[in-house]
């Protein structure tokens, strides 16, 4: 089956053959693109958020295909596990008090915006991407994304931003409490 595909498509796409990995990537990428469009296209905020969750989850899968396993799992922990839950939490809180607020009305500018976005995408892609089509073999060593390597890099070369991020998170904590607490 795969060979058949390759035989049909090979003459059209010079330079690389269609492999199982490519098809797997195409499936993940298609899912990611669909869910990305869903975030923008759904009028209901909860649907948008769920699409975004799906997108982040699929992205974690794509990170695994890039051998960046630590990043993939961190993606799930941070984005789907924490950030999107917080989003849903706030959406639900707003939903509890004013459900109508989260329902966008249909708007003609949606279609216009989508089209313009696609045009821009095509323009930029045509400028930047064609030269990179030939690059199909990864250059980084396997295991570059293991927790050990990531940790070592984090605590040697990037120790200053790592420490600085603690200040950033402190700002996040203090700021969110300051902004959202009920009483002064």
């Amino acid at each position, binding site marked *: 089956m795969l060979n058949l595909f390759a035989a049909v498509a090979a003459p059209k796409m010079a330079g690389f053959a269609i492999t199982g990995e490519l098809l797997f990537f195409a499936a993940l990428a298609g899912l990611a693109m669909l869910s990305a469009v869903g975030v923008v296209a759904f009028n209901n905020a909860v649907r948008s958020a769920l699409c975004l969750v799906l997108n982040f989850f699929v992205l974690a899968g794509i990170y695994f295909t890039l051998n960046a396993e630590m990043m993939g799992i961190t993606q799930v922990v941070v984005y789907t596990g924490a950030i999107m839950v917080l989003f849903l939490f706030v959406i639900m809180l707003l939903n509890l008090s004013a459900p109508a607020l989260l329902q966008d009305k249909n708007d003609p500018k949606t279609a216009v915006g989508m089209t313009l976005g696609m045009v821009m995408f095509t323009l930029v892609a045509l400028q930047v991407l064609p030269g990179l089509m030939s690059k199909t073999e990864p250059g980084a060593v396997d295991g570059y994304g293991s*927790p*050990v390597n990531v940790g070592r890099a984090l605590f040697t070369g990037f120790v200053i931003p790592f420490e600085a991020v603690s200040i950033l998170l402190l700002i996040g904590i203090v700021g969110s409490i300051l902004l959202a607490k009920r009483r002064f």
Partner: protein
Amino acid sequence: MAEWYDNLHPVWQALIRVLLFVGPLLTMVPALIWFERRVLGWFQDRIGPNRVGNITFQKKDKWVPEFLRGKKIRLFGLIQPIADGIKLFLKEDITPSSVDKVIYFLAPALALFPAFALGATLPWGPFKGLTPVADVNIGVLWIMAISSLGVYGVVLSGYASNNKYSLLGGLRSSAQLISYELGMGVSLACIALSTGSLKLTDMVTAQEGPLWGVVPAVSNWNILTPHGAIAAVVFAICMVAETNRAPFDLPEAENELVAGYHTEYSSMKFAVFFMGEYAAMAVYGGIFATVFLGGWHMPIPVRWDYIAESQPMLSGVVSYFQWADFWMAPAWFLLKVWIIIFGFVWLRATMPRLRYDQLMSLGWKTLLPIATVNLIVVATWLLLQEVAGPGPALALSVCTFAALWIIFRAVTRLEPAKENFLPNREISMVEVKPAEKPEAPEAAVA
């Protein structure tokens, strides 16, 4: 492992591993339900389900062996969960009219998924390549990642039900899960730090060493080390909260939220939530056993290898234990899981439910600081071990913990503590009426 297994195609190997994990888990769930009901009955001095599943053989039955004819075999209600399942399956499946349909159907599936995916990195025995579905070097992170997905099922079912009580239940649950996720993560990080690996099989192997690096005959179960014991307590509490079990079952508090997020769910959809909860219980028990209780080893922390070496005269007996330790690994593992599940039930039977603010302050003001201080102590301990050897390091790390904890309490005590409890009241079962007054004359006139 066996040769035939190694010769299989990797896909089949993977399938076998998945079956080895999912099969026991699925069979455990009904048994667990029965176990909980029986144990609860025992705690509450009643009998519990004991009728369903009695098999009575007629005298005239020809197909049973002679000695069974006319006998009644008691199964102590073991079949009860299956009967429950049949009941739930045959019940009318009600879908309220104004629910958000897609999300309404998605939510139970999302609630069940993490419970099963969570245990994928759990090793059931020393048979490398056979037991964990995926022995990846991000095992602990996997647990963190998947357990944080558990909140979606609850929140979305609450939202989709289009019911204020359900939504409130979902919101409470999401706040609860996020809060306790932190304490759990940090306490797991303590163990990961002291082990030096995020792999669960490495964690089990690390627990085979001598206790504290000093006592050679006892194996180094994490629950026996000072920092590990603290982490275990924090983890255990967070684990109960993460599975939404009593005393942390606020999302479904009957008296406040009419059963919370699954009020609007009936029939099989409810059964799926139910299954998710019990499967999560079993899997968290497995995680606890793996990380803190020596994993697949015998439930006594003895290093048989060392004993065999140092006491050659005992080697005959010890070799028997070694054999049992290796070949009965899944059984030991399951035994530990059941002990933990008994703990779950015990908690449910004895603890009153927490109030919401108590729940939050326990999570944020007690468990998280303890776990964080513990993490600092583990780091200090590892550093000191390099410098001063295991013994002094241990003593110093204990002192560090005490000092940090005292400082923390001293700092937080400065704030005047609010009275968190209701004033004492007399509660009596029988309503005591005040002494009857003669009716007011005005009322009589009116």
